[in-house]
């Protein structure tokens, strides 16, 4: 009320209206200036390089001549490239699925226990997410060591012989996914736990009155209520996992025989270490389609929720 009373007289006089107009004009100018550092930073160091990568990918190795799709044609003819495509998809999709499942299961267990103990458990289980990935991958590298593997030492007690964690193609693929799941599932757990807390208790009560089993409660109440958060977390994680670098680089550096290279690490090998910048740029551009699809879905969800509010 006081707000309206204070405003009305000001609006009624023509003089102050024009000054109000001026203020509005000034306000948008100030706002633009306040956002300018952000705009400059993102334009010069994110948007421009992203576009520049496309241009670079069309040059020859010495970057002296335009070759059009030459680099892409060259890549399509190489077996290693298709191996990298296969491994990138396998790595990202398998890892995201397992992260989502483990995150969901662990979130349920944390949600099940009395709330005063939850904070402690949640804090403990998030540790893998907090440690810099390059550092924790080093610990895994040591756990996977061919001759001193502490994991094999444990497994030997269960009668399982020496596992070549990073030495053999199939196992190496398994290992990089395992480490990625280890680092990423706590994030899913935190997201799902927050979502679980927001499901109204009455829905579960109503379901159990209707005689729903434990499984039906999850399937018909929890999952539909969490659908949005599950989708968005999975899409986020798909982007990050697809563009991963640290884990593969530290754990296997792409080996054995390029079997664990993903787009990021292979682009580094080809572009920086191999000195063929255009080819490296071409390799990294293959990440764009899947990133674009995931980003579109995420943005659609966000604008949808924005209009709901």
């Amino acid at each position, binding site marked *: 009320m006081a*707000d309206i009373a*204070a405003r009305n007289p000001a609006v009624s006089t023509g003089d102050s209206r024009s000054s109000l107009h001026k203020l509005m004009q000034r306000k*948008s100018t100030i*706002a633009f200036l306040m*956002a300018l*550092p*952000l705009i400059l*930073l*993102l334009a010069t*160091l*994110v948007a*421009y*390089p*992203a576009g520049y*990568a496309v241009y*670079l990918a069309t040059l020859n190795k010495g*970057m002296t001549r335009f070759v059009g799709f030459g680099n892409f044609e060259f890549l399509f003819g190489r077996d290693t490239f298709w191996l990298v495509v296969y491994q990138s998809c396998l790595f990202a999709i398998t890892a995201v699925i397992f992260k989502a499942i483990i995150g969901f299961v*662990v979130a349920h*267990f*944390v949600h099940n*226990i009395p709330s005063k103990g939850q904070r402690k*458990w949640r*804090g403990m*289980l998030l*540790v*893998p997410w*907090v*440690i*810099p990935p*390059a*550092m*924790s991958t080093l*610990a*895994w590298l*040591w*756990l996977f*060591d061919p001759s*001193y593997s*502490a994991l094999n030492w*444990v497994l030997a007690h269960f009668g399982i012989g020496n596992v070549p964690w990073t030495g053999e193609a199939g196992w190496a693929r398994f290992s990089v996914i395992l480490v990625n799941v*280890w680092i990423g599932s*706590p*994030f899913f757990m*935190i*997201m799902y736990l*927050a979502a679980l807390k927001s499901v109204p208790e009455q829905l579960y009560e109503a379901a159990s009155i209707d005689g729903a089993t434990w499984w039906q409660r999850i399937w018909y109440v929890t999952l539909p209520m969490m659908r949005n958060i599950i989708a968005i*977390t999975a899409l986020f994680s798909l982007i990050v996992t*697809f*563009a991963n670098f640290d884990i593969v*680089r*530290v754990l296997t550096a792409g080996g054995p025989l390029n079997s664990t290279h993903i*787009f990021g690490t292979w682009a*580094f090998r080809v572009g920086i270490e191999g000195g063929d*910048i255009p080819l*490296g740029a071409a390799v990294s*551009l293959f*990440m764009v389609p899947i*990133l674009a699809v995931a980003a579109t879905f995420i*943005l659609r969800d*966000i604008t949808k929720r924005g209009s709901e509010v």
Partner: protein
Amino acid sequence: MANTAVATEASSRPKYGSMSRDRTWALRWSYFFLVLFAIFFLMPPIYMLITSLKTSAEISAAKNPWWISNPTLQNYIDLLTQNQFLIFFRNSAIVSIFVVIVTMLISVIAAFALARMKFWGSATLATGVFLTYLIPETLLFIPLFKMFAWVNEVFDVQLMNHWWTMIILYPTLTVPFATWIMIGYFASIPKELDEAALIDGATWMQTLTKIFIPVALPGIIAATIFTFTVAWAQFLYPLAFTTSTSELVLPVGIITTLIKGDVFNWGQIMTGALLGAAPPLIIYAFLMDYYIAGLTAGATKG
């Protein structure tokens, strides 16, 4: 009538009992699996600690790797008296602190403008900020590599192989997310608050510093922690753009200098990795709730 009442009563009683028995079992199973998962999640950091307390002789002996027979701090002493390691640590600390300052200055001010002072294209810009957050560094390091060479040619400024280049580069990773969180926090502040301040004659800057920053302090703390963690952990950019040992930051320094060919001094590597993981872990231990709030806000707000 009375009969049915008794019947339902009788049938509901044991059911109640079985439900609470179910609960107890569900609780026991929950604890059981939580312990299993906690072992899985904490095994690598614990093994880091175990290895870091061992001598090289003990590490290479064929004994129980999970047990320390002669605990020693020698690895820590060796590493912390080594000039090189201290340089890595210093580089990492300076870079992270400056990145936090730069990021928070840019993103808090920009988020305020985007959340409260609408201007032409501000909605598009907010979406653009989010999109840049989704562009990974694995896509950008190659064009940046070429751009740095160009800057060197044209302006005669060598950006390659300097730790301070990271202060310019890291904000591209942290600013979009920090801005995104801050837009969410600022948007949740009631409009009446800043309207009242503006009517009282406060300028926009005063509204930001006197009202928005104090009210959104939890969000600012969350964004600061996030920025620090990302800056401390970044691996690809320093690996691609720095090579001299005096210019390396901690994660890259540990991996490139402690691993020499086929000789792995695992005691020192694990000590270095643990010390490298310590700053984010310590911050996390003290500010866990802010950390988790920021994590969930990033994807759920907006």
